[in-house]
């Protein structure tokens, strides 16, 4: 698989059917022999972004490693919906230990493989934003700084969805959660809090850090594939939508994720060794309002009275991302624009 993005003029999108592209360019999901690492029959909600993201990520990793893959999972939605005992959706060796220790369990797996001289089998640790940026952060940071041979994937749906939508350090400001209710003078999650896990990962000087979303699944696959070509600690932060927690229609999962990118709310980039080296450009720059109004977690910004000031603050955040990462402009104009991109 190459990293080249193809524009499909028939549909105006990047997500046309695989029959239109060369076999080598096709998504792993089009391959009849795909691993189905997380197979059907799991109990995720309709329109679950995490289930979709995990499926693409793990199948790409399975392809990249020839099926020589072990996964360690943090407690959370992904763990719960995939293993309602005695059923399991996992078609690869998979272990769940605790909420906060997936990165450390991954380290242990990698250490055991190393001790046994097994250089074939690779390790993925994965969890939601709670298990990654909050309770699992110490183990994650330890894994990074030691340079353990683990790819850790965070499926970020911006709150603790498994326990009923409570705020995490990945919850955006003003978002309503069960612990940041849409009441009072400053409804929703507070401003000036939260952490940027991918940039913190980058600061560990690990060889590979990237962000992705379920709006561009080919990009997600390509990033997993690239990550698996590298040894050492790697981090992939995937924005996944959550119909339940965000209050979006199940059918809008990909649409909302795309708007997160097109508004500049969620910058998609790639880097390593402390530097951002490539970004995905915004094709149709969109006001954040288009993104916010699809989600009931932001409903208090529009009704009963429109909160222009807060919407403007959110727009300013998005604009800062666009400025900081060079998300808008012609290819080749921004110093970060190293990827060849655009139409075919």
């Amino acid at each position: 698989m190459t990293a080249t993005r193809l524009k499909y003029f028939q549909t105006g999108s990047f997500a046309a059917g695989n029959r239109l592209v060369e076999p080598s360019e096709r998504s792993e999901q089009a391959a009849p022999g795909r691993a189905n690492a997380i197979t059907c029959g799991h109990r995720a909600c309709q329109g679950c972004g995490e289930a979709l993201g995990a499926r693409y990520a793990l199948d790409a990793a399975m392809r990249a490693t020839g099926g020589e893959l072990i996964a360690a999972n943090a407690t959370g939605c992904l763990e719960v919906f995939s293993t309602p005992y005695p059923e399991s959706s996992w078609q690869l060796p998979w272990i769940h230990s605790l909420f906060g220790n997936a990165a450390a369990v991954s380290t242990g797996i990698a250490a055991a493989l190393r001790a046994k001289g097994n250089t074939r089998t690779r390790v993925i640790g994965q969890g939601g934003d709670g298990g990654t940026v909050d309770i699992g952060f110490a183990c994650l940071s330890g894994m990074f700084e030691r340079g353990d041979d683990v790819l850790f994937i965070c499926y970020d749906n911006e709150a603790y969805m498994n326990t009923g939508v409570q705020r995490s350090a990945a919850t955006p400001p003003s978002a309503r959660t069960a612990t940041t209710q849409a009441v009072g003078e400053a409804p929703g999650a507070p401003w000036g809090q939260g952490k940027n896990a991918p940039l913190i990962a980058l600061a560990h000087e690990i060889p590979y850090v990237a962000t992705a979303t379920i709006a561009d699944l080919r990009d997600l696959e390509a990033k997993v594939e690239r990550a698996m070509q590298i040894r050492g600690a790697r981090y992939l932060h995937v924005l996944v939508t959550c119909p339940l927690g965000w209050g979006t229609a199940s059918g809008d999962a990909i649409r909302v994720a795309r708007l997160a990118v097109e508004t500049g709310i969620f910058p998609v980039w790639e880097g390593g060794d402390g530097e951002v080296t490539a970004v995905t450009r915004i094709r149709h720059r969109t006001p954040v309002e288009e993104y916010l109004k699809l989600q009931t977690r932001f409903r208090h910004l529009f009704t009963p009275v429109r909160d222009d000031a807060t919407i403007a603050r959110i727009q300013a955040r998005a604009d800062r991302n666009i400025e900081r990462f060079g998300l808008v402009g012609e290819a080749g104009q921004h110093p970060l624009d190293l990827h060849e991109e655009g139409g075919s």
Partner: protein
Amino acid sequence: MPEQLEGSQAVARTVAACRPEVICAYPISPQTHIVEALSRLVKSGALHPCEFVNVESEYAAMSVAIGASATGARAYTATASQGLLYMAEALYNASGLGLPIVMTVANRAIGAPINIWNDHSDSMSQRDSGWIQLYVESNQEAADVHVQAFRIAEALSLPVMVCMDGFILTHAVERVELPDPDRVDAFLPAFEPRQLLDPSAPVTIGAMVGPEAYTEVRYLAHYKQMQALDLIPEVAAAFQQAFGRASGGLLRPYRSSDAETIVVALGSVLGTIEDCVDQLRDDGHRIGAVGLRTFRPWPAEEVRRALEGARHVIVLEKALSVGIGGIVAQNVHRALEGLPITVHTVIAGLGGRPITMASLRSLCERGLAGTLPDTTFLDLEEALVDAEIGRMRGGRRSGPHAENMLRDVGTVGAAGLT
């Protein structure tokens, strides 16, 4: 060949002879010398293949061990005190998953108030964690029991804690005959995991289990641990046959067969107790001791058999269950149900308070005379406690206990002759 060795070095070299493949280390006194020595053995290539992982917390240490063990590696770590509590969640997970990790606990008190000295508060707090708990009397036994621990753990697919008194054993330099590495190889078969993360035969480990099977899974955890009551003596006997030394097992009686009064204890204090028993025997008293080696699983039948001839049993323990008293004593009580035996609880040696021969002797004499109360705090400075209780009664804002009492003691930071 005997050597004059620090306890921690003896344990480290014995663990190395057991060929662990993954060792995770996080510093905490008084365990640290053990992993420091192992770090040297791995770095120098003397222990190979082995991955030595410097983790960021005890929680991570146990989690790395979990991942490694589930991938089929023999995994080892060591901790103490706050470290054991910090990994508590992972302790239950390791036993719940049935992973045969071996861990040394260099027993130390728990804060607040922070205290680095020896007692059994740490391991006793994890007695229900599903780990097998073995306690050792000397550094010789510490070395020997680690070899047995790996064999017991892997046979049952259960984790084992080897509890040795912090500082008193870990930092004591004494005569130890290390188990010969070749014989250890013969004694300890290669680790054959019951469950394995293996791409050629994928399994799911750690799934959610609902009410329909959770009770059964827990029953099996209990069943497996109770099997250790048969296995531990078997392994101790096999060890004795292979190495010529009696170490480990469930419990060890000392001059107790005809004793009217028996002192029950665990750990290094047994040595001082045995000396005390000898003194009192010389004076014609019918006293003996029973040293517990295995605390989990609880060897109820063996304890009952060892104590059923006595009239008084004095359980001397280095831990306190606040709100009820003795922990070991509760277990002994249950083992002796229906027998006409008085069980006395003695809380001793908390936070490194020395257990002296003089105190032990007067304690035993009171036991023999039938004047020992139900529960005794050995060498309790009652004046100190009374003064603080007085302050509490005197007014609401009486301040922090520990600091108040240290001010009363008055010699903070002095030589520390004890």
